[in-house]
């Protein structure tokens, strides 16, 4: 724990957030084992009971008597997993697109970035919805759909970096030596992009989690009985007059995760890229 102090100098919020994220992740993995309930067990004796009540339902139960502690942690796991995987998908597409555009330059770059601009100006969630129609609504297709649409900013970030790299001497030297383009991209450009990509990827994860919970909230994402923070909140919103905790518990987790990821991303940016944006 001593080393953590050194991770984000001058960024106490990033340090706290990292610890909080670690705690949430640990809880999400280990927590369900502490409870006698499984995420789809029905406790008919205690339907919609408040948190801290009997039956070891620490966060209470939902309308079907399912344990909210376990379901929320299950939701955290699903949401985190989809967020991370979707980021990975967007990373793959965005980095490839941006690196090629930035390295190619000229007309290819202009055309590729024009396409990004066009998509950028569109409400892309609608395209995610279109994709969920196409791909179906399972968690595995969901992250592909979200990632396939969320790569635009990554492409922009990478292009700017790649373009500035292109004009550096060692790249010019590699070109002059006749090193094949793909090799320059893989061996020289990509490794030098790692810092910027890592920073931006961290900042992308919360956005991806928000889109997932958005879709699940609307019923277009993770389907019952599986849990995600989004569909838990949708059920909570439906019951909030009688059982506000059903909404508040998943809400707090979502907000905590999204905020913490944002702070960690800011901390990383200051660490790896001291220039202010």
């Amino acid at each position, binding site marked *: 724990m001593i080393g953590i102090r050194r991770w984000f100098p001058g960024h106490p919020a990033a340090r706290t957030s990292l610890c909080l994220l670690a705690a949430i992740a640990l809880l999400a993995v280990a927590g369900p084992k502490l409870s006698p309930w499984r995420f789809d067990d029905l406790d008919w004796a205690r339907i919609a009971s408040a948190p801290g009540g009997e039956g070891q339902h620490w966060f209470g139960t939902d309308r079907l008597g399912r344990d909210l502690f376990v379901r929320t942690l299950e939701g955290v796991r699903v949401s985190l997993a989809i967020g991370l995987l979707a980021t990975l998908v967007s990373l793959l597409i965005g980095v490839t697109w941006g690196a090629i555009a930035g390295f190619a330059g000229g007309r290819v770059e202009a055309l590729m970035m024009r396409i990004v601009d*066009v998509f*950028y*100006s*569109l*409400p*892309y*969630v*609608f*395209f995610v*919805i*279109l*994709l*969920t*129609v*196409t*791909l179906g609504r399972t968690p595995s297709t969901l992250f592909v759909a979200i990632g396939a649409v969320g790569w635009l900013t990554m492409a922009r970030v990478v292009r700017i970096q790649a373009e500035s790299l292109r004009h550096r001497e060692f790249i010019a030297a590699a070109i002059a030596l006749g090193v094949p383009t793909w090799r320059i991209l893989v061996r020289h450009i990509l490794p030098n992009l790692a810092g910027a990509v890592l920073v931006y990827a961290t900042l992308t994860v*919360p956005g991806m989690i*928000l889109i997932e*919970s*958005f879709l699940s*909230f*609307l*019923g*277009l994402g993770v389907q019952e009985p599986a849990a995600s923070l*989004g569909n838990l*909140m*949708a059920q*909570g*919103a439906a019951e*909030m*007059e009688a059982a*506000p905790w059903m*909404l508040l518990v998943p*809400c707090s987790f*979502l*907000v905590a995760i*999204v*905020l913490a990821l*944002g702070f960690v991303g800011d901390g990383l940016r200051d660490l790896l890229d001291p220039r202010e944006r």
Partner: protein
Amino acid sequence: MRYALARIVGLLPTLIIIVTLAFVLVRVAPGGPFDQEQTLAPDIKANLDRAYGLDLSLGQQYVRYWRGLLHGDLGPSMRIRDFTVNQLIATGLPVSLTVGAFAFALAVGLGVPLGLLAATRKDRLADRVLMAVLALGIAVPAYVVAPLLVLVFAISLHWLPVAGWEPGTTRDLVLPVISLALPTLAYVARMTRASVLEVLGLPYIRTARAKGLPPVAVLVRHVLPPALAPVLGYLGPAAAAVLTGSLVVETVFGLPGMGRFLVQGALNRDYTLVLGQVIVYAVLVLSFNLAVDLLQGLLDPRVRHDRRA
């Protein structure tokens, strides 16, 4: 003027790409709108397919769709019987646009002054409190804010209705508009603050202060025009964000807007309905972006100059 025309013409290829992409995405999906009704006899299904043109090849369907589109016809809904997509959109769009326009106006109209306030009070208490609240506002999406607002103001305090929509009543609008506006408002405010602070550090602001101008004049004349440029550039994405958020807000508050059609359409594979809405939204956002772009050109003498050249 020539520039404006060129920009409008430049939108056409974009629109063609969008329509094509949306069409392809919807149509490569396995299964059709009538698959779920398993009791459907094969000949009835064939009749239905023929009635909606689903028996034609994809290319033919595409051409047919364009022919309709050019006449402003988005086709019949495949699942909501006896309604055309145009009719459905005509019932939903006014509601969505009303809520969206109010939310957008609130987000920009309040977000910019708040950002400005924070920037001029940098690192003081007002700035810190505001920035903390705004950070929360960005992290908390509309679908969290909306139910929470209902919980507090409608269920606990009974100040405002929980949900519902009667045309012409403003009380029904308050909570949906606020919850829709908040995340965008927070973003606009943070952006304004960052941008104003950046401009305040520029050398020409020191010149303006050295001239002995009153602070308000420095702020209004020297700081704001360049500081608002990035905010102006964000208005397009902000409009898109508000439209997106309206899907959820309409669901939470039971508003009869476009949102429910899109969700139902996506769940039921109502090709034409989803396609029609995506196209309408895309056109809305694109024309809004165009308007912002032209406005930006009017405000910045350097852009104007470059374009003249």
